[in-house]
């Protein structure tokens, strides 16, 4: 199962990005083989439609869950129809490493 996490940087020590559409990096973590991939977000500085574009990017990787700080209005209905689970974590100081540890529970 694949989980996407929004990240502020491309290291394990970077913290979770509180925005979804305009986050700096996406971390796609595979819980089965513990592989991870950092994807720079091309929509970081987009003026409009960053959310839906990011959903498309994430959906193309067959992700089942997304961990982020906040999801915009346009995204909720999109993710609902794609059956991707949204996990809202309102703790900006949590690092990617912490979250991956939590996922491995």
């Amino acid at each position, binding site marked *: 199962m694949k989980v996407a996490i929004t990240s502020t940087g491309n290291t394990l020590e970077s913290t979770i990005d509180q925005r979804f559409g305009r986050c700096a990096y996406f971390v796609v973590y595979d819980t089965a083989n513990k592989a991870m991939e950092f994807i720079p977000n091309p929509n970081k500085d987009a003026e409009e439609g960053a959310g839906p574009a990011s959903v498309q990017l994430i959906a193309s990787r067959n992700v089942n*869950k997304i*961990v982020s700080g906040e999801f915009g*209005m346009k995204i*909720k*209905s999109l*993710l*609902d129809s794609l*059956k*991707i*689970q*949204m*996990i*809202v*974590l*309102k*703790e900006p100081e949590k690092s990617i490493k912490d*979250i991956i540890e*939590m*996922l491995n*529970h």
Partner: protein
Amino acid sequence: MCPRIKVLRKVLSPPIIKGFMPYGPETGKQKQDLVNLLYEEYEALRLNDYDLLNHHQASAMMGVSRPTFTRIYASALQKIAKAFVEGKQISIEGGKVYFDSDWYQCKKCACYFNNPEKDKSVEFCPLCGSQQVNKFDYENSHEDAPNKNCDDFCICPNCGVEQEHQHGQPCSKQICPQCESLMKRKRNINCKKNKN
């Protein structure tokens, strides 16, 4: 010119039934067309007549303006009346809505998550795997109610005590915590108009 885009209406949970069928000797004689009640209209009826909220409170729950709520509600009554009088089926579906019922909260890691598979129940937190998950209580977290950000105050005309105005609760029914007389609205000029 294109019309103004409709705001998404928040619906707590989908209705437990899909619609209603009339019965009796006259049914089935006419052409079988049905009345389509939208989810938002069902929700308006539920909030107003089942939960007995006023239009103001209900509009905040659905994330629309009060006039919009009243229009949705009026349309719901009209459709139900039509179905009753003409002996038509009611089917409840469609509408520009999103559902709010399937949000859960984990007590251990303080995260919120939704449940995209509606037929399965949630037992574990998807993040930390703990079993301390609760259904997200909308009542106690009115954070995203759009009408809430009115930075007005209620003032006591007797002793001048101010307290923050609670949306949907008239100042004239508030009691001053110090001298126990009725409060009044201060009328702050910066009070934001409700956006929709």
